[in-house]
């Protein structure tokens, strides 16, 4: 209906102001298209190269995780939620588990919290590296892809070493974490902890990631064509971004110093020294640059966490059958794509009564009709890519 009204409005305007009648073209970008990051569909009404009305159509990937959660037990749900934003699967698990722990009133051992934090930051690095890889590709440069993905592989190898999974770690347990190392037969007493040498390898990998980020900056940031394609394109003013609920690096690129890692206490971020990079103009370039700077900050956090990781158990005492007491809570976390929140309602059963998932990409792409109004077709791709969304995170 919205589309039709816009069409009528536009036709009535154009018949008054335009003498030479030209026909608009409806361009269907997606759901199968090289740069819609999956199955997003954009219905663009274009006049030559200029798009005057772009409507995103979502839902091609809806998997019904909120409903599925109602018929799963709490430990089973981590398998679902790390498939939401699969580029940073690990980061999705943490806020959900924290929400359940909050209702249960469980104190998580410090070492487990540190491991969660290290892995969350590594998930952020790998997610941002994917962006570093795919964004130049959308602008036509294929080479940064390989440099960024090579470094991402380093990070994913480490994640796999600890959790047993590259994309879907399924690693958090209520009350702690469960490393893959030493798992197996329950009759043998095996100490479950991080794999041997993990901390040293991570320190090494973080140095290499730092180098690679410098290299990527040289390759991309000094490129005149990239600057011409991104500077001043897709400007997102802070008040509009806030009104649409845009979060994460996208709103920070608009100059808003909003980072849930500094506000919330789902993980012990207050122990670490890091900055929140913000952009100036809120254009595509700032969104690229903020993510680049965030990789450096995440590396800083990981390095500090490795140095300061305490020893101790990884798991708090929890009952065998977990029944979360009646109540409701909302836990939000700063995920790579933005604010990820779980509104958990429990009626005392083994599974949640209702789980509302607030995913970052869904709110972030709600800005598309606003920000894509009147831009050129190549800029549709440039702006869409700069928002860095994942379709699993949009549709859930």
């Amino acid at each position, binding site marked *: 209906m919205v589309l039709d009204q816009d069409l009528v409005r536009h036709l009535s305007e154009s018949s008054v102001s335009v003498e030479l009648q030209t026909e608009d073209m409806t361009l269907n970008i997606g759901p199968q298209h090289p740069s819609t990051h999956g199955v997003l569909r954009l219905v663009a009404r274009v006049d030559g190269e200029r798009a005057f009305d772009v409507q995103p159509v979502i839902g091609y990937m809806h998997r019904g995780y909120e409903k599925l959660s109602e018929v799963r037990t709490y430990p089973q749900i981590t398998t679902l939620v790390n498939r939401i934003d699969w580029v940073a699967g690990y980061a999705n698990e943490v806020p959900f588990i924290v929400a359940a722990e909050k209702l249960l009133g469980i104190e998580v051992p410090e070492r487990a919290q540190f491991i969660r934090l290290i892995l969350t930051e590594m998930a952020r690095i790998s997610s941002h590296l994917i962006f570093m890889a795919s964004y130049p590709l959308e*602008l*036509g440069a294929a080479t940064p*892809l390989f440099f960024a993905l090579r470094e991402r592989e380093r990070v994913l190898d480490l994640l796999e070493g600890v959790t047993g999974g590259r994309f879907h770690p399924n690693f958090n347990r209520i009350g702690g974490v469960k490393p893959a190392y030493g798992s197996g037969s329950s009759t043998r007493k095996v100490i479950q902890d991080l794999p041997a040498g993990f901390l040293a390898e991570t320190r090494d990998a973080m140095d290499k990631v730092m180098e690679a980020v410098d290299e990527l900056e040289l390759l991309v940031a000094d490129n005149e064509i990239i600057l011409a*394609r991104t500077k001043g394109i897709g400007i997102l003013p802070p008040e509009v971004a806030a009104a649409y609920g845009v979060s994460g690096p996208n709103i920070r690129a608009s100059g808003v110093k909003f980072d849930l890692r500094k506000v919330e206490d789902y993980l012990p971020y207050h122990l670490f020294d890091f900055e929140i990079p913000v952009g100036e103009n809120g254009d595509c370039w700032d969104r690229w640059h903020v993510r680049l700077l965030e990789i450096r900050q995440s590396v800083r956090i990981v390095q500090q966490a490795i140095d300061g990781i305490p020893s101790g158990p990884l798991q708090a005492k929890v009952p065998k059958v977990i029944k979360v007491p009646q109540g409701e809570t909302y836990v939000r976390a700063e995920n790579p794509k933005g604010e990820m929140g779980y509104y958990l309602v429990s009626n005392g059963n083994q599974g949640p009564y209702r789980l509302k998932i607030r995913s970052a990409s869904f709110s972030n792409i709600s800005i598309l009709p606003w920000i894509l109004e009147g831009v050129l077709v190549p*800029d549709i791709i440039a702006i869409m890519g700069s928002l860095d969304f994942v379709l699993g995170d949009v549709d859930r």
Partner: protein
Amino acid sequence: MDFLTSLFSNFWVSLTGKLLLVALMIPLIGMVIGYAEMKLSAKMQARVGPYFAGGRWGWAQLIADGVKFFQKEDLIPDEADRPVFKIAPVLVLVSTVAILVIIPFGPGLIFRDLEVGIFFALAISSLSTVGVLMAGWSSGNKYSLMGGLRAAGQLIAYELPLVLAVIGSVMLAGTMSMSGIVEAQISAGYPYVVLQFIGFGIFMIAALAELSRIPFDMPIAESELVMGYLTEYSGFRFLFFFLAEFANMFSLSAIAVTLFLGGYWLPGIPEDVLAYAGPVILLAKTFLLVFTMIWFRWTFPRFREDQLQSLAWKWLIPLALANIILTGAFKVYL
């Protein structure tokens, strides 16, 4: 022997022979450059590239690809304008064949030494854009249509600087004949790039735009228009475009070499050796330029259509005009 001489003096027989030679060159050049592109891009991106085909280094990858293309179903969309859709790839390839005709590979080693050689080359090379426009228009696909229209817009933007960049060399040589321009450079004792470096730069930029390669690949623009005017093409028709792109890279580089880098001539090589070494020298210089084009492609992102227009009209054309004035002044006063 007499019979053979008389046979080849027959106009039609010699024409057929020459055409066959040119037609054989195109797949060969296409394969060499295609393979080079695969391997070089792999090197630039920390990859290995083709590896297994042919037993070693993947040297037979392009042959395998060619065979694969011929096995594919020849798909023509329902909405397509069938005759135009079929002619378009042929037209693109024909323009490539026609350019090769006027490139001097050595002293006297030229398929047809036209008096208006460079004029012919520039006219024919824009024929390929007509083919691209036809492909985009006839595919019955909106992405193809936009790709075709972008190609047409690009044609207007870069054809002018391309022609204006050439004028400097033509003024210096005093002839439009391609072999005449090379001979003029030999008698001058230096390649024209020494004086015409502005013209050379503009020519290469405009040639990249003509080839619609990155950074000017807006008509294809994979991340925007799926595959642009190529979206609906498959099988050997796609192969035609593919070959034409690589062969065009070669022929435009060869024109640039002839006009600006001394063609088949290298300073210090005697006349009689040149007759044999000429083709090798020309190929070496040409592949150097082709390498630069590949290098550009895997380093740069894509311009936007309007940015190409402003680059062409605000920078390249005024620069080319200034270059012509400077060349004229040089010609008159020195």
